[in-house]
């Protein structure tokens, strides 16, 4: 059971760093109820920064991979993502095709490398 819950400290961190900073914007939307101009410069900048932060996290997972992914050679990690991206573009931006092809290359590569 303690394995399931883990460390209480981590749950407090989840609340402080994850739940509150995320939920505050939904509740603001609920309480204020009126929109801000979707085309406003401030919101455009926020959207661009949010996209870039997410892109940075994606890059981080591939460049400095956690756990089991760390055992995969860099060439194969980048190759799988690149192959997935090519499939994504060729299928007129199908997320599913991109993910599937990236995974196939990853698995094939691991078998090939032994």
């Amino acid at each position, binding site marked *: 059971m303690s*394995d*399931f*819950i*883990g*460390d209480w400290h981590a*749950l407090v*961190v*989840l609340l402080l*760093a*994850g739940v509150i*900073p*995320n939920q*505050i*914007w*939904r*509740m*603001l*939307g*609920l309480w*204020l109820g*009126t*929109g*801000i101009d979707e085309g406003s410069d401030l*919101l*455009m*900048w926020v*959207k*661009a*920064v*949010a*996209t*870039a*932060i*997410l*892109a*940075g*996290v*994606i*890059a*981080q997972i*591939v460049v400095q*991979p956690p*756990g*089991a992914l760390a*055992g*995969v050679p860099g060439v194969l990690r980048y190759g*799988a*993502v690149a192959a*997935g991206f090519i499939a*994504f573009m060729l299928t007129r*931006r199908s*997320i*599913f095709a*991109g*993910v599937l092809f*990236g*995974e196939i290359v*990853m698995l094939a590569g*691991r*078998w090939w490398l032994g």
Partner: protein
Amino acid sequence: MSSIVSTVLSLVLFVTYIGIGALAHDTHFSLAWAMLCTALVWAGPAQIILITTLASGVGILQSAIAVTMSAIRLFPMVVAVLPMMRTPGTKRRHLILIAHFTAVTLWVECYRFLPHVPRERRVAFVHGLGCGLLGIGLCATVIGYLLAANLTQTFASAILLLTPLAFLFSTARNSKGLADILALTLGLAFYPVAALLDSGLDILVSGVAAGTIAFFVHKWREQT
């Protein structure tokens, strides 16, 4: 229920949360932590930002700032979704859960389904839809977590790769304007550079720099 099962989006949702569950496992969070994270945060980008930043050992404050930047987009989303189901008799507290369920999947599905639902039933309908989607997310989180814990290295690494693949392509698909595309590509390119600086603020530095450049290039193109 059939409306939930039949959507392609729920497949993407499922795959995304399998990846998030696996990521939480391999960054040494507990299963309960991963489930609470999905249930209480309920926003894929915020969750992988939270998990990755916390796991890389940066401070709580930096994680919180990165999460909140990614969550600001939920604000206009909630503002857009709620009027679709409001009636003169709707109290604000009836909409709290709906505000919580609001994320990109629910937002898209509301536009698709709500025109076919009588207005007075919409609050109930969206509660059902939201619970269904969150249920899928929770199941997938648990499945991904357990798969990562029990599979061989080969399959576990393939499951971990789901997160970057799914988020990369869904972000690329949603990128319409020049600002979005630039923010995505510069964000990918800047992170490794910022990581070399090893400031402990890598994600924020690269995100703010890439996002700001993308924004100004967009403004500049608009003017010329």
